[in-house]
């Protein structure tokens, strides 16, 4: 199939991401964002959804034949675009809704219609867990698919990609939209085929990696006009033949807060291992030297900012120690840098927390999902430093070939929209960085989940003890319990406590995605105890087993507060879906990492004193302390994210002699 010139052009073209607003501009822009998020937006969406709902009868009386003829008509309209297409959105959605009812047996609620409209108009729709976001994305994607412009539906993992595509496929097929999916195990030829479909389900990682590889293939020919001219003038030299993507146009991002915010700054790196004997040697020596340094005397470390600093004594010691070495060790800056990295590895990288050892290799653990990421590695030198610390054979450092952060990548889509359960805390950031106004779609049925007050403890040991007691007590009633932890270590700690009490449970730890989803899906059944890191099994609903609603539904226990209130809400939101009953409670202690890292030590001491002395209002005080810590954590994280973006823009400008940046 030969592409039309416009398709050929779009293959290479992407939006030029606007530079971030600064200073007063940012203030003004913030007001513009607030205008876009005003209450009236939701009212209009809801009114329109009601109107679509009222057409239901007309469509349900049609035969399949008639319906599909109408849909073909819509498809042609949307392909042509313009005013006509805009006017028929309501009708089209009503028709697709009917298709959904007939083909997958789900009849979208008016709230879901409102969500689909929001996605179509480029909003970030906040929809609670269990409100059927997958279907909402499907409705919006049909509209986008009809235009034949590439539409990517981005989810968090391969399992969801496959599941969602399979689930919604009948709707697409009936509507005349071709659909495919891309997962990590696919070969380029397959990918090209799948991206060739109107709508493609994929993960953010795959999409970005494919984009980067395409860009690498294009080389210097990233200007769409030049590219098009070249392809037209000498088709045999065209570089676009090897590209797997059709370009970037529409993206619908599921779990948008985790993809667009939490994980947004981790750059995706395409790299190749390159031999570097010197670095290997240096890492071994650095590890040796570091083991001789004493904390507090030779160096100081700062847990809050994850930094170490050599003292003057340390520098002197280092100098003496290095006299016999050559190469990198001869330069003062060089050796301090090497030692610093080794210190980082020693102080801040803990086996079981940041990484695990598998088959004699260091495997990075994703702090969010608790999942090992065998293909990931830390930056040059650091990875080797950790390996040296563990006494492993050192791997060759990976040399970067191309690199782009998710944040920058998603800014390149022409039409970006997304869905998530928790967005409003970050609505400012969504607007400033992605120009995404957040609209909060209410739940179809009111949420009746009970939020039990936080339990506060002075130390961690008591906290976990009480958690275990609580679990045992609730378990006797037969209610299903979900225990959300921050990382793998905590999961295991809780597990061993439950073991002592002879309770059986499911531990979600870095196993296969499919299994994970199955466990999570069954977590709502009778007598189930499930321990999961907070992001595990995202995207899968916990449906209550029969009879569970009567005895109170799912109970969620948070073993800690997270850096962001959003993550807390996500965890709590796993119970009480679709109007089901449920309850949630958080257990916190003053020894939690959140407070240790993000609360001023004086404040922390004051809070602890109040807690121990049971001062009046100590509960309010601790609550405030946690609030402050979360705000600090959010601020630091936001700063880091914008700093990454700024740094990238600076590099683009400062190194523009090295050719246009990859995106």
């Amino acid at each position, binding site marked *: 199939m030969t592409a039309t010139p416009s398709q050929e052009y779009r293959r290479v073209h992407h939006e030029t991401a606007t530079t971030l607003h600064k200073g007063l501009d940012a203030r003004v822009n913030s007001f513009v964002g607030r205008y876009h998020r005003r209450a009236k937006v939701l009212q209009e969406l809801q009114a329109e959804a009601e109107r679509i709902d009222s057409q239901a009868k007309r469509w349900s009386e049609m035969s399949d034949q008639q319906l599909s003829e109408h849909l073909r008509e819509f498809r042609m309209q949307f392909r042509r675009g313009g005013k006509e297409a805009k006017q028929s959105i309501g009708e089209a959605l009503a028709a697709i809704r009917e298709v959904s009812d007939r083909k997958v047996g789900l009849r979208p609620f008016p709230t879901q219609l409102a969500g689909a409209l929001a996605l179509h108009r480029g909003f970030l729709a906040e929809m609670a867990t269990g409100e059927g976001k997958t279907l909402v994305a499907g409705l919006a994607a049909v509209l986008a698919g009809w235009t034949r412009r590439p539409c990517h539906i981005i989810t968090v993992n391969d399992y969801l990609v496959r599941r969602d595509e399979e689930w919604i496929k009948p709707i697409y097929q009936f509507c005349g939209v071709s659909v495919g999916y891309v997962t990590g195990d696919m070969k380029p030829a397959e990918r090209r085929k799948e991206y060739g479909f109107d709508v493609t389900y994929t993960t953010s990682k795959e999409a970005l990696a494919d984009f980067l590889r395409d860009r690498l293939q294009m080389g*210097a020919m990233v200007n769409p006009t030049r590219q098009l001219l070249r392809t037209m003038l000498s088709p045999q030299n065209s570089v676009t033949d090897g590209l797997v993507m059709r370009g970037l146009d529409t993206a619908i991002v599921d779990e948008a807060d985790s993809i667009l915010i939490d994980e947004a700054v981790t750059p995706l790196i395409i790299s190749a291992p390159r031999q570097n004997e010197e670095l290997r040697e240096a890492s071994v020596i650095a590890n040796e030297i570091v083991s001789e340094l004493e904390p507090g005397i030779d160096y100081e470390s700062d847990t809050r900012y994850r930094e170490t600093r050599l003292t003057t004594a340390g520098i002197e010691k280092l100098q003496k120690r290095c006299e016999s070495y050559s190469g990198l060790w001869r330069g003062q*800056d060089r050796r301090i840098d090497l030692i610093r990295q080794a210190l980082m590895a020693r102080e801040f990288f803990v086996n079981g927390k940041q990484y695990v050892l598998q088959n004699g290799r260091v495997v990075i653990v994703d702090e969010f999902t608790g999942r090992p990421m065998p293909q990931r590695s830390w930056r040059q030198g650091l990875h080797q430093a950790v390996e040296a610390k563990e006494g492993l054979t050192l791997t060759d450092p990976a*040399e*970067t070939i191309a690199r782009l952060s998710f944040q920058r990548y998603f800014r390149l889509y022409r039409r970006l929209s997304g869905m998530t359960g928790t967005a409003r805390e970050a609505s400012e950031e969504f607007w400033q960085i992605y120009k995404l106004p957040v609209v909060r779609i209410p739940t179809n049925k009111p949420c009746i989940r009970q939020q039990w007050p936080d339990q506060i403890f002075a130390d961690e040991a008591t906290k976990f003890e009480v958690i275990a007691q609580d679990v045992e007590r609730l378990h006797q009633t037969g209610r299903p319990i979900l225990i959300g932890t921050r990382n793998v270590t905590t999961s295991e700690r809780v597990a061993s406590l439950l073991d002592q009490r002879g309770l059986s449970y499911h531990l979600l730890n870095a196993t296969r995605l499919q299994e994970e989803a199955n466990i999570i899906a069954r977590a709502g059944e009778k007598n189930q105890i499930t321990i999961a890191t907070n992001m595990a099994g995202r995207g899968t609903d916990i449906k209550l087993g029969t009879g569970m609603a009567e005895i109170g539904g799912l109970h969620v226990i948070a073993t800690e507060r997270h850096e962001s209130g959003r993550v807390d809400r996500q965890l709590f939101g796993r119970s009480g879906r679709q109007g089901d009953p449920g309850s949630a409670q958080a257990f916190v202690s003053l020894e939690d990492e959140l407070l240790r890292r993000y609360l001023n030590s004086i404040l922390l001491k004051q809070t602890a004193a109040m807690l121990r002395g049971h001062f009046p209002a100590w509960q309010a005080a601790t609550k405030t302390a946690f609030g402050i810590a979360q705000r600090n954590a959010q601020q630091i994280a936001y700063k880091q994210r914008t700093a990454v973006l700024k740094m990238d823009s600076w590099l683009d400008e400062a*190194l523009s*002699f090295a050719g246009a940046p990859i995106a």
Partner: protein
Amino acid sequence: MAETPQTFSESWYRIANQQIALRQGINVRRQNFRGERWIILENPFSNQFFRLTPAAYEFVARLRRDRTVAEIWKECMERFPDIAPGQEQVIQLLSQLYYANLLQYSDAADSAQLFERYQRMKQRETQSRWLNIMFMRFPLLDPDIFLNKTIGFVGKLINPIGALIWAMVVGWALKLAFDNWSMLKAQSEGVLAPQNLPLLYLGLVFVKSLHEFGHAYFCKKYGGEVHVMGVLIMIFTPTPYVDATSSWSFRSRKQRILVGAAGMIVELFVAAIAMMVWANSSRGVVHNLCYNIVFVASVSTVLFNLNPLLRFDGYYILSDLLDIPNLSQRSTRHLRHLFERYIFGIRKSESPSNSNSEKAWFTVFGISSGIYRVFVFGRILLFVADRLLLIGIIMAVVCAISWICVPVVKYVKYLASDPILDRHRVRAVAITAGLAAVLIVLLDVIPFPRHFRASGVVEAKVYSHEVNGAAGFMSRLVALPGSQVKAGDTLAVFSNPELELELAASKANRTETQARLLQAMGHETANIKPLSSKLDSVEKRISRINVELASLTLRARQNGFWVAPSIEEGLGRWFAKGTSMGLIVDPGSFEFVATVLQDDVDQLFANTNSLAQVRIIGQADTALSASNFRKIPAETRKLPSPALGWTGGGDIPVAKQDSQGQHAAEPFFQVRADIQSTGDVALLHGRTGKVRFDLEPEPLFTRGIRKMRQLLQKRYQI
């Protein structure tokens, strides 16, 4: 410990395979600064400079179009492991070279970025030009061709013999100036008079043009390039300028200094010749023009060019003498560092200095140039505003923006978002808020003791002018001036022979009239009436004369000291009736008459319980307390004593038309207060002194605002 740059960079891949090199035609020179070696890269097309450490240059020098950056980096690491830059430093370095337009690279550069950068640069240029309203530069033409044609001849003058001639001419002119010092000084008063301004400006343009050509020729002579000549609008006065910055890359420090000083060398030479012409010409246009040239060349040279605290020639010369390039920017950075390090406690903050002596220079220069700049610009503002109010106001607004608003905004931005403050932000904000609070409290809340001074004169409270009651020659002094007298004591005796003759005549007349009256009683009764009235009038005259005769003896009217400074000179002299011969002063009670100017008077009148101290001139060490104020609520212009006015050596301006020197230029109010004499201070009538009124304390800010308003009101009638 400072932040060490990372050896490996995550962004390395972006430049690792680039094949870049330094642009062709870049001049590379070595320079030593304070014993350290630096490499200077000069781009002759843009006159941009770039300073590199030798280690960085080792890397840069190896850049070639047929090798990749990664290869070169590796080679450097192998050959100079101890000094070679890390990957992060290389990225920094290359980006800086790129910004300085010193790199040559493949044509696939991101042209969109290039244009964006160019636009931003232009924008910044325009912005800084308008913010720097006192010194705006407009480049106009390239004087290269002209200079090339003339350098052959002019260049020959730049040598030791030329220097000798220069020294002789300037020396001779100095001698002339010395000889004619008083005339020079006298003429300087009229130099800023409106009628002289065109001539002054002509002289300025002439001298400054030659000055600039001086720079240009010296620069050319030592191998530099001069390609830009234009107009510098200095305080709304267009003057020429040339761009001789290519001299910065000269290896020889002496040559750099000479180029910097060249302008002044030429200027002084021209001034010397003008001085000779001036000294040997009589009044006329040429004479005046020469005077203006001398004035411009000397005053502007000292005030601006030679002064290192402003960024003119002197600054560059000093910078070369100290061997510290970029002195000004680096001192600012150093001051900032001091602030960050010692006030905000940021240990990461790094000083731009390389040695302790540099640190000292940065501190001294930074502070003094800051103060001086504010002072000079403040004076310029007032000066301009005096003449051209509207422009003065515009300038003041622009200056307020660029010196107050911009720095404050920048500082707030720095506080809010500078990464260096990341861990110290709370402290920094707290300290800033604290300082601001202290400042506000200091200025706006805490009342400071307040006082003002007024000059005045001591007057005896009770005194009488002794006036002679009749005209006459002073024949005898009875009481010596300065002696104590009692009421009724004879002070002096006058004689008036005419009066005695008149008395005799009148007496004769009386006798005659009496005789005629007797006669009339007998014969002509009709004449009795007129004769008796005539007798009456004669009697009256006699008694009047007698009174006058008695008045010829001057008697004290009250007890006290007889003060008559020059009465002895009057012996034998004729005094008309009613002449004041002296004063009798009561030594027991004196009062001080102060002249309070309008600006202060309202506060004095508002402050009911103000205290005051009087210090008599000549005996300022003892303060006399004054009490019982009597504020006379009416303005006057007549000074109580001419000694208070300018002409009398006092400090109150007097009206120019008044030859007596007793008529103040500005109306004032009189305040009288009783003063008590202490043993040490002899209170004498007419002694001048200063009174210090202590007013109720008031915060400084309120006071400053009032002073400012008064200044505006007085100067500009706003």
